[in-house]
C-alpha cells in the first residue's frame, strides 16, 4: 500500500507526542495488545434475527472494550492478526460501524489481512468504503517490509494476498529477514493454522511451527502474534494465538480475550484479558423421567447471562407423554429467555413413551381410545411419525377433556 509509510509516520508521531510515558518506558519494556478474528459481519443462523443483531453488536462492543483495556494497561498499540472482517464483500454498514468501533481504541491499531479479508483483487482494504472512512491511527499491513512502529520496535507482517496461498502463509513475513539489529525488538504478525495444531486437516498450507520457533530462537523475531484460531492459545512463550474477541461457536475453548503483551529486554509477559460478553454452550441431557427433566430445568436455571447465551441442546431418552409436553414447553420457554436454545437435530432423540396410565387418565373410550392405541402400537413398532401424532392427540384430548 502506497500510503503505508505515511501512516507509519503518523503513528510514530502520535506515539511520540501522545504517549511519551510509553516511549520512556521503551528502555525497559513495551506493552501492546494482540487480538484477532473479529470477523465483523459474521452471521449465525442458530441465533435468529433478533439474536443475530444483538450478537453482531456484542462483537463490536468487544472491540471497543479492547480500547478500554488499552487505556487501562497503557498499551502502546494494538495489533489484529487477521480476519478483521468476515468477508471482503461485507455490507457498507459493517465497515462503517467497524471504523466507529476502531475510533474507540485510542492507540494505533495495526490490522493484518487474513484469509477472510485477504488482500486479493476486489479486497475490502483497497475499496473506497474502507479507505474513505478508516481512522487515521489505523494501519493495514499490505506487504512484508518491516515497519518501525517505534524506535527500536519493528513490526513485520505476512498479509494474505489470496484466500488460497500456495505456501506457508507466515513465511513471507520473516523468511528473508536478517537478525534484528542490536536493541531492536521485532514482532511478526501472521495468520493461519499451525502444522502442529491443524492435525493435518487443513486444506490450505499451514504455518511451519519449527521454522517459526527457529526464527524466535535465533533472534530474528521476539514475538509472533497469530490469528485464525478462535480460542486463545499459547504455542510457546513468544508465539500466541489471541483468539477471537467474542465467541463464535460452542466448540471454542477460550474465546473472548485480548492478549496484553509486555515485551521486555529479555523477558516477555503475555496475559489474556477478557473482553467478550457472550457464551455459547453445548449440553447433552439424558431424559427418561420427571427427575431427569427437573435436572435439565435446574441446569438451565443455573446458567448466567442467559440473554447473552446460546445453548445447543442434545438429548436422548424417552418420556411419557405429559413429560414430553413439559419438555417441549420448557425448551420453548427457555428459547425466549436465552439468546437462543437450539434443539441439536443431529443429537435429539427423545421419544414419547406413552404408558397405559397416560391413556387411561384421559378417560377416552370407543374410537378415540382405539385410535390412540393404534398410534401407540405404531410408535412401539418404530414409527416415528406416530410419536408426534400421539403426543398431539394426547394434548388435544387433555385440553378437550
Amino acid at each position: 500500500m502506497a500510503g503505508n509509510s505515511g501512516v507509519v509516520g503518523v503513528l510514530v508521531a502520535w506515539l511520540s507526542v501522545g504517549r511519551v510515558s510509553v516511549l520512556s518506558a521503551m528502555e525497559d519494556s513495551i506493552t501492546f495488545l494482540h487480538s484477532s478474528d473479529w470477523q465483523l459481519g459474521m452471521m449465525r443462523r442458530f441465533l435468529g434475527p433478533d439474536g443475530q443483531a444483538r450478537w453482531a453488536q456484542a462483537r463490536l462492543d468487544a472491540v471497543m472494550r479492547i480500547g478500554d483495556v488499552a487505556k487501562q494497561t497503557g498499551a502502546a498499540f494494538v495489533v489484529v492478526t487477521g480476519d478483521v472482517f468476515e468477508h471482503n464483500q461485507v455490507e457498507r454498514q459493517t465497515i462503517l460501524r467497524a471504523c466507529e468501533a476502531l475510533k474507540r481504541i485510542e492507540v494505533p491499531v495495526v490490522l493484518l489481512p487474513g484469509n477472510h479479508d485477504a488482500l486479493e483483487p476486489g479486497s475490502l482494504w483497497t475499496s473506497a468504503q474502507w479507505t474513505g472512512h478508516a481512522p487515521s491511527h489505523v494501519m493495514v499491513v499490505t506487504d512484508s517490509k518491516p515497519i518501525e512502529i517505534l524506535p527500536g520496535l519493528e513490526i513485520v507482517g505476512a498479509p494474505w494476498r489470496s484466500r488460497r496461498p500456495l505456501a506457508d502463509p507466515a513465511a513471507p513475513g520473516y523468511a528473508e529477514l536478517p537478525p534484528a539489529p542490536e536493541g531492536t525488538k521485532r514482532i511478526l504478525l501472521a495468520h493461519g493454522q499451525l502444522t502442529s495444531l491443524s492435525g493435518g486437516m487443513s486444506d490450505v498450507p499451514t504455518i511451519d511451527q519449527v521454522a517459526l520457533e527457529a526464527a524466535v530462537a535465533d533472534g530474528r523475531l521476539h514475538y509472533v502474534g497469530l490469528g485464525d484460531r478462535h480460542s486463545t492459545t499459547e504455542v510457546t512463550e513468544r508465539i500466541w494465538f489471541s483468539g477471537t474477541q467474542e465467541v463464535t461457536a460452542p466448540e471454542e475453548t477460550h474465546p473472548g480475550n485480548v492478549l496484553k503483551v509486555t515485551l521486555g529486554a529479555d523477558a516477555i509477559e503475555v496475559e489474556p484479558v477478557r473482553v467478550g460478553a457472550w457464551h455459547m454452550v453445548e449440553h447433552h441431557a439424558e431424559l427418561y423421567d420427571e427427575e431427569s427433566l427437573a435436572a435439565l430445568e435446574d441446569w438451565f436455571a443455573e446458567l448466567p447471562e442467559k440473554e447473552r447465551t446460546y445453548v445447543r441442546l442434545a438429548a436422548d431418552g424417552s418420556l411419557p407423554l405429559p413429560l414430553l409436553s413439559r419438555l417441549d414447553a420448557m425448551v420453548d420457554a427457555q428459547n425466549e429467555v436465552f439468546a437462543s436454545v437450539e434443539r441439536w437435530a443431529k443429537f435429539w432423540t427423545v421419544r414419547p413413551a406413552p404408558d397405559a396410565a397416560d391413556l387411561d387418565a384421559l378417560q377416552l373410550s370407543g374410537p378415540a381410545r382405539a385410535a390412540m392405541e393404534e398410534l401407540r402400537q405404531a410408535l412401539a413398532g418404530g414409527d416415528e411419525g406416530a410419536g408426534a401424532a400421539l403426543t398431539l392427540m394426547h394434548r388435544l384430548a387433555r385440553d378437550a377433556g
Partner: protein
Amino acid sequence: MRLHSLTLRNFRGVKDRSVSLPAIGTTVVVGDNEVGKSSLVEAFALVFELPDDSKAKRIADIQPVGQDVAPEVTVELTLGGRELTYTKRWLKNRATELAIVDPDGRRQSWTGREAHNEAERLFAENVDPVLWQTLMVSQGQSLVLPTPADAEPLITAVTAESGTPVDGASMPLVTAVEHEYLRYWTRGGRPTGEFAKSAQWVATAELTAAQALKAMDEVVADIRRAERLALDLEDLSGRLGEHLKSVEELRIRKKDTDEILLRRDSVRARAETARARLENHTRTRVERERLLAEVARFTEADAELAKRRTDAETVARKAAETVRAAEAALAEIVELKEERRGDVHEAERLVSKLADRAELDRLLVQQSELVDVRARIAAAGMVLDGVKVDDAVVAALEDARAKVVEARAALAAGVPEVSVRRVGAEVVLLSGTGLDAGAGVKVPGELEEDVQLLVSGELVVDVPGQVEVRVHAGGEAATLRSRLDEAVRLEKDLLKQARVKDLAAARELLRKADMVSAELQEARRTERSLTANGDPSERIALLCARLGISAATGEVEEDEPKPSGKQLPPVEDVPGQMSLFEEFEEDTFDFSDLVVPAMEGGDLGAAERALEDARAELAVAERLLSDAEFAAAQARKAADEDRSEAQQARARSELAEERLAAAVEALVAARAVLADEEVEGEEEKATAEVEAVLDELTAVQAQAHEAGADEAAGALNDALAVATRLQGERDVLRDSLRTTEGRLEQSGRDGLATRRDTAELELAAIRAEHEGLKRRADAARRVYETLGRHRAEAQTKYSEPLQTRIESLGRSVYGPSFKVWLDDDLAVAERELDGARLRVESLSTGAQEQLAIITRLAISHLVSTGEGSVPVIFDDALGWSDKGRLRDMGALLGRAGDHGQVIILTCMPERYEYVPRATFIKLEA
C-alpha cells in the same frame, strides 16, 4: 312409560270423554274427524307442559268456543315403575292433583304447583324427549323419517347390544382434532393457512438465497480470475521485456549487413538487364530464320497449287458438256411419251362411247317393260277401287242374315200360324195386317193354293159373299213383327252399301277382288325390280346427252309450251291410272322423239383391245424417260462436284499467293532493321555481357551469405512480430484485469457476502419454522385420519343393532332382499330391494311412509326392554299404502304390540283391519 287412560273434559269439542288403553299391545282408536282423536295427544302434552295457571294461547285455544267452562285432563300412566294419576284444570277453578303409587305400594299425592313440578320432574327423569318426539307421530308427519341418534334410551340399547360404547364424551376431542387438522390442511388434504404460506416462504427464501449465492459465487470466480490475470500479466510483462531486449540486438546486427545487401541488389539488377538484352537478340535471330524458311516454303506451295487449279478447271468444263448432251436426250424422250399419252386418251374416248351406247340400248328395253307394268298396276287399281266388299262387310251381311232368320223364327213361334186351304172353287181373299207367308214370300191377295200364314196383326179370310174370317194375333205379335221388319231393313241397307244383291253375291265379289289384288302386288314387285337402280329414264337422258342423240323432229312449237314427252298412254280401261303418270309431269325427256342412230365402227371389244395396246406403248415411253432423267441427274451431280473442286483449287492457289507476298514483305522489313549477316554477331556480344555480370553477382552473394545478411532481416522481422503479439496479449490481459477489478469493486460496494449470509440465515429460519409446521401438520393429519377411521368403523358397528331390527321388520313386508343403510344420525339413508339400492328421498311416498313406520317400530323394539321405553303413537298413518302393503304393515303393527304399547289414532279403521290382536276403541261423536 305406559299410558293407561286419558280423560278429557271441556277440551275443544270434547265435553267429557275417557279412553282406556291396554298397557301392552296395539290399540286402534277409531273416530270420525273432529271427534277429538288428536285432542288426546294434545291433552297429554299439555298436562305435563303447562301449569294450571298458564296464560298460554294454547290453553285459551282448547276452551270450547263460546262456553265459559274449564278444560280438564286426567291421565293415568306408569312412569319409572310408579303409577301416576294426574289431573289438571285450567282457566276456571284451576287445579292440579297428582297421586303416585310407588312400586312398593307407597302412596303420595301433591296438589297445585307442587303437583305440577313433581309430575314435570318425573316425566323429565323417565322420558327421553328425543325418543318421545321420535315415537309420537303427529297428524301429517307419518312420512318423516326419524333421526334418533340423540335418543338416550336408544343409544343405551344400541350400545348394550353392539358392545360399542357411544363416544358422546369424546366429541370435543373429535372437534379439537378436526380443528387442529383444518389449521394445516383443507378437507381435500391440501396444505392451507400458515402451513401453506410457510411453504411459499421457503420457496421464496430458497430463490433469494440461491440468487445471493450465485452472485457471491460470481464474485469469488471474479477474484480467482483477477488473481490469475494478475499472475499472467506479470509473467507476460516479464517475457515481453526480455523479448524487446533481443529485438534491439537484432536491429543493430541488421544495420551492419544492410550495405552488402544493397550492393547485391544493384548487381542483381544489372544481371537482369543483360539477360533481357540477350534474350532480345536471340529472339531476333530465331525470327529471321523463321522468315527465310517461310518464304521458301510458300514459294514452292504456290507453284503446286497453281497447277492443281488448271487441272480442276479442265475437268469441270468436260463435265458441263456431258450434262448438256444428257439433257437433249431427255427432251426427246419426253416428247415421245406425250405422243403415246395422246394415243391412250383417244382409245379411252372410243371405248367409253361404245359402252354408253350399249347401256342406252339396254335401258330403252327396260323402260318399255316399265311402261307395261305401270299400265297393269293402274288397271288393277281401278278394279279394286270399284269393289266395296271386303271381309268385314261380308261378316256384317252374314250377321244381318242370321238376325233376320232368328226374328222370323221368333215370329213364327209367337204368332198364330194360319193354314188356309182351298177346298172349294170360291174365291178366297186374304188380307189384313202383319201377315207373313215366310221367307220373303209375298202374301197373295187371293188364295190360289194352300198357304200358311203367320199373323202378327189381323188376317181377314174373305170368301166374298160367303164367309169372312178375321184372325187377330194379339199379345206380343206386334213386337215380334216389328223386330223382324227391323232385321230385314238392316240387311237391305247393308246389301245396298255393298252394292250386291245378296250375301252370296257379296262373297263372290270378295273372292274376285282378292285375285286382282294379288296381280297388283306382282306388278308392283316387277316395277320395283326395274327401278332398283333408279329410274332408267334419267340415265337414258344422261347417256343421250353424252352421245349427242336428240329428238328427230327438232321442231318445237313456240306457242305450245307443254314440253314433249307429255303424251299419256291410253287410260280408258284403266281408271285411276292418271295419277301414276302425273309423276312424270316434270320430266322433260321425250322418249317418243328419241332417234337412236346406228353406231359406226362400233365394236366395243376391238376398241378395248386397241386401248390396251396404246397403254403398253405409253409404259415403254415412261420407262425410257425415267432412265434418261437418272442419267441427266448423274451427269449434273458429277459436273457440280467438278466445278466445286475447281473453285477450291482456285481459292487455295490465291491464298498461297497472298501468304507468300506477306512473308516476303515481313522479311524485307526485318532486313531493313538488321541485315541477315549481322544478326548472329549481335547475339554473341550480348551473351558475353551476361556472363560477366553473373560472375560479379556470385561474388557479392557469397559475401552476403558470409555475413548472414538475409537471416538478420528475417530474425528481426520475426522478433518484431512476436513483440507485437506479446504486447497485444498484455493489453488484453490488462483490460480484462481492469474490467474484473471494476466488477469486484462494485460487488464490494454491494455487500454481496452479507446479502448471501442474510439470505441463508433467513432461509434457515424459515425452513426451520416450516419444518416445525410440517411436523405439526403431519401429526395433525395422522391423528385426524386415524381417529376418523376408527370413528367410521365404530359407526358401522354401532348402527348395526338398529339396522338389523329395521331389516328384520322390513323383510316381513318386502321380502328377503330388503336392506337398509343408516347415516351418522342413525337415520335410514338408503334402501335396497331386489338388488336396487336407492336414496330414501328417491322412494315413493308410500315406501317412505312404510320405512318411517318400520324404523319407529324397530326403535321401539330396541328400547322396549329398558326403563326409558315410551309408547309408539301414530296419529293417522298408512294413508299411502295399497291393500297388499296394508295387510303386511298391519301384521307388523300387530307384532309390535307384543313388545310395547302401540297406539294408533285413525278415522279410517279399515286401514288397520289386518292388525292382529288389536284392541279397537270407537270414539262416538
